[in-house]
């Protein structure tokens, strides 16, 4: 019996996602002991999932880019730019549905700019997206006159809020379901389509990909466009939470997204990464933040705790994988 359990355990640990999932459960459990009783409640779990939607969606896009051997530092700025654009659109009487399309189109456009610069100019992604991080943020501030942009009330404000009693059958608000849907789609695309295989091939060994006739620069342009599009959707969620356009929001969010990908088993050297792992990673980040603040720890302690947990989690995962080979 014990052997059987061991075997099942060993088998499940062989999955890439097992490490992050286990880490998520352990960390949640630890906070449940340390924090007040409210931590282990359904309401709290819902809150954590809700708070993860923004960074989670952005991190799904980041996962694709990182598997393809790249990095996208500009997504925080894209999110801010998108919140401003939505608010300005609504202010000017654009219907909410159209504002959604504007958000997606703007995010995708920003991503295409990244992709074009990376594949045409052959500048490394880190530098290109560091540059556009500043450029997009600057545009957001310019458009908004460096102020928050108010917007009329619309259904867009309800994507990530606490559900009203009559909507409780939905379990989670729309934004969370959107994150789940996107995760499933990307999981399928990465695993079962040519695009997914080529992305992994480029991140794993770019020379081989070229040799095998993969159009690497086109593929890279797509990767960043997708990442930009996901940042656009995350921007929509961000707007929904703030109900205003804010050019200074989501500073450093790209680093949270990268951390989520890496905690989830992604490798910054490319070729490796998992959507499900990334979602676990993003949830871990939220659990740490929420847990620390519910314990009443000051902000600076929270940051140290988050840093330590991220580093330890990734180091442990490395050890686990090394022991397997």
């Amino acid at each position: 019996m014990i052997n059987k359990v061991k075997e099942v355990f060993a088998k499940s640990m062989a999955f890439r996602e097992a490490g992050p999932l286990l880490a998520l459960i352990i960390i949640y459990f630890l906070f449940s002991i340390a924090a007040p009783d409210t931590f282990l409640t359904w309401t709290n779990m819902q809150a954590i999932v809700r708070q993860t939607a923004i960074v989670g969606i952005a991190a799904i896009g980041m996962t694709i880019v990182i598997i393809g051997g790249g990095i996208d530092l500009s997504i925080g700025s894209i999110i801010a730019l998108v919140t401003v654009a939505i608010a300005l659109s609504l202010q000017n009487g654009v219907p909410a549905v159209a504002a959604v399309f504007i958000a997606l189109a703007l995010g995708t456009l920003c991503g295409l700019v990244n992709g074009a610069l990376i594949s045409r100019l052959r500048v490394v992604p880190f530098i290109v997206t560091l540059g556009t991080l500043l450029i997009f943020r600057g545009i957001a501030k310019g458009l908004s006159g460096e102020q928050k942009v108010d917007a009329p009330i619309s259904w867009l404000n309800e994507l990530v809020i606490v559900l009203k009693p009559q909507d409780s059958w939905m379990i989670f608000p729309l934004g969370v379901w959107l994150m789940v849907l996107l995760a499933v789609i990307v999981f399928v695309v990465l695993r079962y389509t040519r695009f997914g295989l080529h992305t992994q091939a480029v991140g794993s060994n770019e020379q081989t990909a070229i040799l095998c006739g993969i159009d690497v620069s086109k593929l890279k342009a797509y990767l960043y466009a997708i990442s930009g599009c996901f940042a656009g959707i995350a921007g929509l969620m961000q707007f929904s939470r703030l109900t205003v356009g804010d050019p200074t929001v989501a500073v450093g969010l790209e680093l949270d997204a990268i951390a989520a990908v890496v905690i989830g088993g992604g490798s910054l050297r490319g070729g490796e990464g998992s959507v499900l792992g990334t979602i676990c990673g993003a949830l871990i980040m939220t659990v740490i933040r929420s847990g620390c603040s519910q314990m009443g720890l000051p902000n600076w302690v929270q940051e140290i705790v988050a840093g330590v947990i991220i580093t330890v989690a990734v180091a442990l995962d490395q050890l686990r994988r090394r022991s397997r080979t």
Partner: protein
Amino acid sequence: MTENMDVHAKLQATDIEVSFGATIALSGATFSLRQGEVHALLGENGAGKSTLMKVLAGIVRPQSGSLSLDGVAYAPQTPLDARKAGVAMIHQELALAPHLRVDENVALGAEPMNGPFLDRRRMADSARAALAMLGDHSIQLDLPASQLSVSARQLVEIARAIASGCRVMIMDEPTSSLGRKDVLALFDLLRKLKSEGYAIVYISHFLEEVWEIADRFTVLRDGKTVETHAVAAVSVNEAIPMMIGAEMAQMYHRSERTSGEPLLELARVKGADSKLNEATLTLRRGEILGIAGLVGSGRSELVRSIFGLEATSDGTIKFASYSGWFPPAMRWRQGAGLLSEDRRDEGLSIDMTVGDNLVLPAVERVETQGWLMPKAKNDAANEWITKLEIRCPGPQATIRSLSGGNQQKVALARLMFCDVELLLLDEPTRGVDVKTKSQIYKIMDEVALAGKAVLMISSYLPELLGTCDRIAVMYRGRLIVSKTVSEWTEEELMLAVAGAADDTAEIA
């Protein structure tokens, strides 16, 4: 002798010219490959073999000349074009994606689809079929390529070529990292492919292997085709002058040297987790000791253990008055220096300048009161540039801008700038031209005459026989025999390297 037009040709290249900037890589290369043959391309480093191969595989586009495949004009613009036309190049390292599964690697670039999705079943089937055709049934299709052995990776690559319908395969040094057993298996496979009508271009520095497997060979020299012959009609010894051209007046230098006191003594040294199993040797001042052995025999691990780049788990190392294992920083200070076999990735920092690379292990020599003196650095660099006749614009030139031979001279100059007593040279003449080789031999001779000691690893037996005082053989991690050079013949040495001294080897 050169066949300008071969009516039987499957793939024909005529008067190919390629130049990169001012460097002419090929000028008048002609080559014809028949169906069902293994055709070897021979020549010194820099003769243009790899460029010609890249032209055939669509990686390099020729400035002039013509190519035809099955009698039809063939002008591949990319490797994909070549592959679609049926010409595949089997690279050694760079052609598999380490994270992808075996069947994914086989299918890459031509994946079977089922609507918008990959048809994983057909992908696995065609990979299995291609591998089965190669006689392999043991490679697991769901393993990532990173977990395969070198010979299995090669099989996967060949399977990819077969699965995509290629009839011409270009193999670049396919045996360089294989053991003898895997080499024999590869040769069996090549014979099988040959009998099924595949045509194979085979490039190798191991002439004995070429004579074992090839039907014909073409010699390139200075970018031109010199001759094409049937292997059966010419012996290895007759082929070498064709490659080198005019006989070098004096290739090797070995002055009358007398050996002094022992400088390096190893007793039963074993690597902690490397291929090095057991090595015992004594190297005296004034001596050049050669280490012969196959790639992967543990010969590099031997010098790397002495130099502290790899840990040892057993045995004793005594160098000068220092007993025990020391890390590289200490070894430099004690007076030992290593020239790495991997010049580009380990031996030199290729984006740094000649001067910086030269002084790197002993910066204190160009410092005054702890300040780095650019002038002292340049003076030192200029001194060695002159002494070793390094062809470069000056101390400020980056290593990248130098030719292979001149890069190697910088690496060697570093050991001399640091004034080391013990020179550990791992393949010091790899990838350098004949003239530079001769210069390197002369430098080694001078160093030994000055009472220093040299430990030299080489795959090229004639140079060991021409320069060393003693030659020891490394086989499967053990240093098996050591004799003075006059006691070796080239044939005996070759047999010893291949494991004839150890009959149990092939079974193990």
